[in-house]
């Protein structure tokens, strides 16, 4: 576990049950040998002895990585990898994105610092959209089922992912959660990420858009302090705008800072409490959902013609 921030693995829970890890703990050591001599979780039928291959009782010096052997010369060699560190996550994200586009699901990844009002905004959004389209929610928090319970009370199916010590959701966790949620065709999926303006920026979940929520009770310069998140988001919701008369928060300046990082960033001023800006936000969601459904129909058209 990281002693800086507490990031770690092995404590992730989905709806209270342990997340099935893509790599089981034993597999880490697949090249080591058990105390009883059996190879661990490794498809090879032979054992590595650390030096050379042993096949059917014969000692073969030509099975090393270099395929040859000279006394005193190491089999050490260089391998070009050139792979993005997050390529595995990106593969899982591509699978999720594929599921979304096949089923016409409009998926949003909501990111912010803790306390920006994400869950309240989601509760109001679900209430406003009630009866118009199917909605499901994936909630990410380090601990507790509180947020998912609030969402369920608002009338939408919700699944809680507890990341344990982890500071963000990743595409694999979301893929597992999607399977348990039984997502409906032509629906809206809202993913509330762990409250953290740093780490979730790097992890693609397969969403159509990242939506960053900044509340007016925070500092105007947050976009400059945490630029990565504002750079990768497509929409910023400036939340708790009903409090502006009581604060010294300069909303223009906050938007200006955010657009310095991301000139194309769309901004909606909103208040989940007073309802200000809710129509614009709901219209934006409705348009996204329509586009997701249209894309499915369009991709299905050639097939229909062929049949």
């Amino acid at each position, binding site marked *: *576990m*990281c*002693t*800086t*921030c507490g*990031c*770690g*693995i092995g404590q992730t829970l989905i709806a209270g049950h342990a997340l099935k890890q*893509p*790599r089981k703990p034993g*597999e*880490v*050591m*697949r*090249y*080591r040998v058990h105390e009883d001599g059996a190879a661990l979780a490794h498809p090879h039928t032979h054992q*590595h002895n*650390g030096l050379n291959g042993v096949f059917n009782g014969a000692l073969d010096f030509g099975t*090393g*990585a270099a395929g040859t052997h000279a006394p005193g010369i*190491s*089999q*050490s*060699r*260089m*391998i*070009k*990898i*050139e*792979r*993005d*560190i*997050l*390529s*595995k*996550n990106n593969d899982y994200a591509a699978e999720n994105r594929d599921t979304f586009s096949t089923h016409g699901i409009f998926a949003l990844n909501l990111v912010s610092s803790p306390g920006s009002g994400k869950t309240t905004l989601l509760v109001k959004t679900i209430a406003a959209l009630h009866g118009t389209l199917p909605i499901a929610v994936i909630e990410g928090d380090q601990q507790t089922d509180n947020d998912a319970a609030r969402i369920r009370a608002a009338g939408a199916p919700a699944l809680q992912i507890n990341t344990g010590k*982890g*500071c*963000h959701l*990743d595409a694999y966790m979301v893929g597992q959660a999607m399977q348990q949620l039984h997502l409906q065709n032509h629906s809206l999926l809202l993913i509330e990420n762990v409250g*953290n303006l*740093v*780490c979730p*920026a*790097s*992890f693609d979940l397969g969403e159509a858009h990242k939506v960053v929520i900044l509340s007016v009770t925070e500092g105007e310069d947050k*976009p*400059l302090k945490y*630029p*990565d998140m504002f*750079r990768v988001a497509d929409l910023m919701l400036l939340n708790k705008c009903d409090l502006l008369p009581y604060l010294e928060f300069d909303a223009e300046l906050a938007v200006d*800072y955010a*657009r*310095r*990082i991301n*000139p194309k960033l769309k901004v909606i001023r909103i208040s989940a409490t007073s309802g200000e800006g809710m129509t614009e936000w709901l219209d934006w969601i409705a348009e996204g959902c329509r586009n997701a459904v249209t894309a499915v129909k369009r991709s299905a058209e050639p097939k229909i013609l062929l049949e």
Partner: protein
Amino acid sequence: MHEMSLAENVLQIIEDTAHKQGYTRVKTVWLEIGQLACVEQASMRFCFDLVMRDSIAHEARLEITDTAGQGRCAQCSIEMPIAALYEACPKCGSYEIQVTGGDEMRVKELEVE
């Protein structure tokens, strides 16, 4: 802050490649981390050592090459070095700077046997 997950991903790449290339020990790992990639090198080194423990890379040396941030102004098209994401174009003052380099996080090369 997410360096632990990144180190886990590095291990996964090492293990996947070990499968294909048939090596049993990793001696050196070269990473390329851009200065705009939101990765703390000290934290990455710390997490790398923890994550590689008990793996085929448990004695591996970590070499990090860092690449400088590069940007291109969408208004006047000049290329410039950038140290932060909110810098303005030194020529026209626009903030429409597209990052063209320095945000990568890659496993470049491995020395194995």
